[in-house]
């Protein structure tokens, strides 16, 4: 931090003499220069990168051009958790600052040349428009799904390609709440039709945390049944924000006598990494190391903090039964640290598809132009020494989702986890 403090001072000192674009570029460079976890920059000549790309920032005439220049600089590190988040209240600048308070009421995953609908919110306009799990979207607002990845490099790793296509899709699916878009839908039963879908405010609690854009926290839990007829608990939350702690704890308490608990982190991109200590504590009766974050100067360990009490002062035993974690290609960051950490000490079995592989602890800092710089400050390895960045969490039991199972109302990943809970108790 002392180094960052210096960086901030440098940025401020430049204010009087340099245009805002250069101040912003230099501030971003300096922050990373002083906080990146590897002082050798993993072989990248960080000074040379600045020299090479700074003229682009100097020539930038719009915020988008400046962000592109900074983005090019960040991409040289070749790692996750480096991004410029446009100032939330910025004037419209290309697509970056469009109001995306409304969501489509369903979720998708890339599936060949289309987008596979994996979940539809009951009662949403999309549901009313007869969009169902298992449907494939061929186009969104006149843009074909097949074109979403057209500009991506051919050599891009398939998991990263899927992630970028998903991001591009969500840019189009989201928009002002109440606005509408037309989608071309290929129902699982066959045929093709168009549907006009109204965007709705996404469910959940709005979280405003510092410079980050507003986040919607959605926590849900329900009892489910294993194939053998035993009761189990399913807990899903979409982002690691502190407000998830209380409902998660309440859900664990509700399922404390169940045969097993399933934690669904599919599509959960991360959040506050420190929370893995509190959330994992519901499943350990002793303080247990799950992984370590390594900054430039120190190593800090994420320990599960056994949760032996409730807010009202009642004592409880942490859940001792089998724990299954569901992941997919959109499970990232803190979710990966949690899933990988739990897996590494044998406390959970992981089901689904390999996660993002974007698992660097990061901080975020305001830049002189009002944008926010997201920047990794540490590497992360699980308790057994596995580095997750670029690799992801590899499921113990890989399970793929397909259109036919979704269309028939099945969730094969959850089904596999519940079957394992039966076997584990046997």
């Amino acid at each position, binding site marked *: 931090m002392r180094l960052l403090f210096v960086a901030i001072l440098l940025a401020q000192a430049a204010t009087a003499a340099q245009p805002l674009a250069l101040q912003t570029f230099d501030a971003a460079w300096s922050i990373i220069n002083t906080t990146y976890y590897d002082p050798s920059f993993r072989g990248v000549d960080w000074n040379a990168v600045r020299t090479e790309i700074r003229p682009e920032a100097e020539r930038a005439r719009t915020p988008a051009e400046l962000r592109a220049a900074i983005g090019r600089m960040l991409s040289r590190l070749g790692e996750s958790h480096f991004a410029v988040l446009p100032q939330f209240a910025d004037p419209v600048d290309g697509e970056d600052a469009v109001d995306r308070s409304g969501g489509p009421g369903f979720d998708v995953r890339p599936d060949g040349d289309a987008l596979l609908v994996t979940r539809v919110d009951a009662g949403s306009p999309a549901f009313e428009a007869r969009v169902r799990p298992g449907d494939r979207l061929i186009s969104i607002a006149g843009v074909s799904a097949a074109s979403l990845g057209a500009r991506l490099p051919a050599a891009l790793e398939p998991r990263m390609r899927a992630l970028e296509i998903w991001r591009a899709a969500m840019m189009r699916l989201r928009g002002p709440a109440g606005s509408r878009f037309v989608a071309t839908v290929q129902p699982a039963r066959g045929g093709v039709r168009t549907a006009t879908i109204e965007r709705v405010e996404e469910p959940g609690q709005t979280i405003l945390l510092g410079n980050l854009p507003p986040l919607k926290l959605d926590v849900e839990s329900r009892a489910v049944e294993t194939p053998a007829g035993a009761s189990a608990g399913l807990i899903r939350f979409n982002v690691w924000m502190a407000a998830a702690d209380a409902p998660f704890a309440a859900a664990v308490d509700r399922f404390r006598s169940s045969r097993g608990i399933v934690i669904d982190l599919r599509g959960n991109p991360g959040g506050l990494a420190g929370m893995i*200590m509190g959330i994992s504590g519901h499943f350990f009766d002793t303080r247990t190391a799950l992984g370590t974050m390594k900054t430039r*100067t120190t190593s800090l360990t994420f320990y599960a903090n056994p949760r032996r009490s409730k807010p009202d002062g009642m004592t409880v035993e942490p859940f001792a039964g089998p724990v299954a974690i569901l992941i997919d290609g959109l499970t990232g960051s803190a979710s990966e640290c949690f899933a990988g950490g739990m897996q590494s000490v044998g406390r959970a079995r992981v089901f689904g598809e390999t996660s993002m592989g974007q698992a660097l602890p990061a901080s*975020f800092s305001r830049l002189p132009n009002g944008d926010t710089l997201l920047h990794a400050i540490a590497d992360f390895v699980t308790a057994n020494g596995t580095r997750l960045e670029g690799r992801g969490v590899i499921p113990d039991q890989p399970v793929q989702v397909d259109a036919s199972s979704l269309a028939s109302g099945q969730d094969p990943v959850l089904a596999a986890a519940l079957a394992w809970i039966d076997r584990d108790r046997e």
Partner: protein
Amino acid sequence: MRSYILRFTAAAVVVAASLPASAQQTPSITPEARAIIARHLTALGGEKALAPLTSMRAAGALAMPAQGITGTVEIVAARPNKALLKAQIAGIGTLESGFDGERGWTIDPIVGPTLLSGKELDQARFDAVFEGPFHDLARYTSLTVAGTETFDGRKAQRIEAVRVGGDKSTEYFDAETGLHAGSVATRETAMGPIDVTSFVRDYRKTGDILQAHQLVQNMMGVEQVITLERFEFNTVKADAFAMPPAVKALIK
């Protein structure tokens, strides 16, 4: 980790409510160091001003400027060694840490309720002493002046401190005013030890003593600023330090 930051801040506040150094002699404390600390304690108001204080309550704002994080903070302390810090941070919630004279604890929605143990508990016990770190020099095995240098933009006298138990820190005292200017130390957290640089700023007359109104900590690329605006003395009731039920339930 955040709880730790706050707990440490409580200690920093109490620094400014310190009483004069004890007359107890410790051979490894040099006369020069003793003189610097005595000057600091005198600058705060001296024994006559400090002795009547039995408790303190302070309130203000907390910020992590680069991250845009803001909140409120309340710090409560009482003789001989009780401390409580409560912060409300937007987007996070309530974070509390305390020491009730025997047990140290934290509770927040990141890690959950925790009873401190080991070095973290030792640290909390040290920090909770109402008179502050420099009141009883017998708590140090060594205090040695290590020259004068610039610290936080000011000329400052540097003291290398070693606590009973072995923890080391570098303490800085403003060469002009004699007031404690900050420190560099390794602090124990729930995740392991971490280097922290602290700045104590903006001393202002509060009642009969000088009280620091701004406390800044830098750690791991993050700067945290606490600005205190409201102080009360001798109004804190004993039950102010009661543990939250979720923490109390952890006591075996």
